[in-house]
């Protein structure tokens, strides 16, 4: 173990999180002339859902008709909670940024006509490049530095503090603007690259009064090998599924197919629709990581069956996150901005998953916008962050003196995490959602909630894990509170309640949740003509406002 080390820095903009959104935010803020510090729980370049594998992008050439058709299709599949203007903004911005990525050296392949194919990025290459670019822009990167809590005063956010987990030390960064880019929350379900995504940013922002949006749109599981982590599943389109006796499971494999079959028994797949060496070679040079867990287990996926499971992906492939209030992805907290999966993606995804393409382009664009917004905000502040009378804003899952004094029994963090996972991972609670099932589960989660402050972490690692447990407990409660408040089914299966199988035109709004002890929900109209009518109906809005008392 190295010896204690402490880091104390002052900057204009602090970016928390080193996945794609954080990288773009840091680059963008530095480009505006801001002094920027980026901290990551792990390492900018390897952290997050994108780095280990690859990602498709929402990317279309500047062809008006093509883009408008894509926008209209998404508005529809997203249950009309997305906004056309925002999808167009993303299409415009991501086109510019991906040209930059190519100029910076990413070797996009070209088709026969010489057109660069910029709709897919290989994760390790992309994120290694982004690290280089961010460093070159003058950003100070602090790796292996999980944030524990934000700093705050009466003017708003003023930085954050956390631990240097490899040095058993602490860091504190004072900055007048902060971008949260900590990703979503996948509840340590071991989806590829997703175990760093534990909702930390949601909790930090919420402790300062930020709201969340779309937390009901979290009914998302990804197929993966039963024994391994690979949740990149597009290539399963070339597979036939079988039951345990080797009978093919025919029929349309959409909707609830795999979830239903898995509750009946094991499901196996064989990639036998890639039936020539040429096809197999093409697939191996696409989502290469798909093959790794099978190759290493000695399974020839093209001829031999492999067992599948579904891993929960929470808000990573769901669409909920911290509410944004303007085009620069500001939150309701002064100086606090949000990017990537930490933010709600509903403005471009609506009630349909952002996974596979939308989220990756959103990370690039929201990173770019929030970084610029944060830099501009910092520039307008007359009082330097170093001169502000800031205090730590964290309240939950932290080793605070006043909490330790009154503690009698200590709660084991791993047991607490397991108890939270038992509420959010099971298909029969969270996929096949019922009002009764979610109500019971939320009751149990509310009983767990006080335990987050009964943990007694000692080491840096334990302090981070205790905080993650608190963030996951809060996230689960927001999810189910929102899910119970949306008494309808909307969009592309991201939220379904068995008792309310229909879409209710009077619920065509986004649902905000806020609070930690008691959670409040309220509707926010999506700027869409059909919604404006609903929003103007005061009675409808009033009746939808409800307060859910927790615990």
């Amino acid at each position, binding site marked *: 173990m190295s010896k204690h080390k402490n880091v104390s820095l002052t900057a204009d903009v602090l970016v928390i999180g080193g996945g794609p959104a954080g990288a773009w935010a840091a680059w963008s803020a530095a480009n505006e002339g801001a002094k920027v510090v980026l901290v990551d729980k792990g*390492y900018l370049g390897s952290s997050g859902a994108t780095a280990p594998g690859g990602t498709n992008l929402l990317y279309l050439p500047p062809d008006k008709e093509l883009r408008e058709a894509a926008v209209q*299709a*998404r508005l529809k599949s997203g249950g009309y909670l997305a906004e056309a203007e925002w999808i167009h903004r993303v299409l415009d911005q991501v086109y510019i940024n991906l040209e930059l990525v190519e100029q910076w050296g990413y070797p996009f392949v070209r088709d026969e006509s010489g057109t660069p194919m910029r709709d897919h990025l290989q994760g*390790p290459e992309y994120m290694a490049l982004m690290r280089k670019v961010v460093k070159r822009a003058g950003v100070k990167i602090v790796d292996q530095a999980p944030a524990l809590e934000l700093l705050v005063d009466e003017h708003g956010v003023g930085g954050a503090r956390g631990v240097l987990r490899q040095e058993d030390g602490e860091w504190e960064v004072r900055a007048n603007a902060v971008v949260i880019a900590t990703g979503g929350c996948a509840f340590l379900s071991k989806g590829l690259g997703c175990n760093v995504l534990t909702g930390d940013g949601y909790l930090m922002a919420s402790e300062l009064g930020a709201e969340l949006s779309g937390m009901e749109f979290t009914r998302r599981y990804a197929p993966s090998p039963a024994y*391994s982590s690979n949740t990149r599943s597009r*290539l399963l389109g070339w597979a036939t599924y079988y039951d345990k006796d080797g009978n093919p499971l025919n029929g349309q494999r959409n909707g609830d197919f795999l979830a239903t079959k898995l509750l009946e028994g094991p499901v196996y797949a064989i990639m036998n629709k890639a039936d020539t060496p040429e096809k197999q070679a093409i697939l191996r040079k696409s989502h290469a990581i798909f093959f790794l*867990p099978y190759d290493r287990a000695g399974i020839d996926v093209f001829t031999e069956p492999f067992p599948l499971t579904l891993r929960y992906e929470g808000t990573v492939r769901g669409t909920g996150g911290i509410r944004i209030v303007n085009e620069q992805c500001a939150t309701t907290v002064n100086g606090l901005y949000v990017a990537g999966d930490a933010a709600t993606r509903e403005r471009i995804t609506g009630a349909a998953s952002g996974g596979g393409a939308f989220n990756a382009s959103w990370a690039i664009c929201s990173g770019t916008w929030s970084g610029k917004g944060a830099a501009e905000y910092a520039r307008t502040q007359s009082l330097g962050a170093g001169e502000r009378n800031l205090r730590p804003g964290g309240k939950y899952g932290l080793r605070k003196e006043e909490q330790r004094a009154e503690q009698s029994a200590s709660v084991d963090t791993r047991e607490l995490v397991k108890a939270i996972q038992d509420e959010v991972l099971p298909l029969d609670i969270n996929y096949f959602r019922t009002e009764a099932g979610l109500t019971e589960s939320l009751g149990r989660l509310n009983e767990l909630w006080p335990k987050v402050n009964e943990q007694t972490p000692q080491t840096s690692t334990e302090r981070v894990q205790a905080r993650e447990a608190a963030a996951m407990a809060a996230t689960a409660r927001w999810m189910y509170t929102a899910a119970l408040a949306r008494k309808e089914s909307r969009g592309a*299966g991201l939220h379904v309640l068995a008792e309310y199988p229909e879409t209710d035109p009077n619920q065509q709004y986004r649902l905000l949740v806020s609070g930690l002890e008691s959670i409040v929900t309220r509707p926010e109209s999506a700027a869409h003509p059909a919604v404006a009518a609903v929003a103007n109906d005061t009675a409808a809005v009033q009746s939808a406002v409800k307060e859910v008392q927790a615990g």
Partner: protein
Amino acid sequence: MIELVSAERCIQCNLCVKVCPTNVFDKTEGGVPVIKRQEDCQTCFICEAYCPVDALYVSPFTDEAVQVDEEELAAKGILGSWRETIGWGPGRQKLAALDQTPFIDRILPPRPVRAAGISDVKVQTS
């Protein structure tokens, strides 16, 4: 999960310690890094990609530790195979430059099925 840091191959650059997103390794005084928190490994394989001497092995099994035989892994060419696949290392062409993903729709099965309906969503243009 991570199962092997080869003492024979390791050059003690500690890059794996630095890049691991979930901090499973610890540096040691004058020795090779140790796998200190194996249960925190998320099986993302990225440490292997960064290891310049192919000294690491991540088993595909995420929930159970397994015995591995370094000689066998080396003999079968498994050590370093992920780094080779993504084309990192001297004299290799990057996977990114060979990426076939934009073209896989050309070889879709006759009756296209979307993987389980809960996987990647393609942009719908019609």
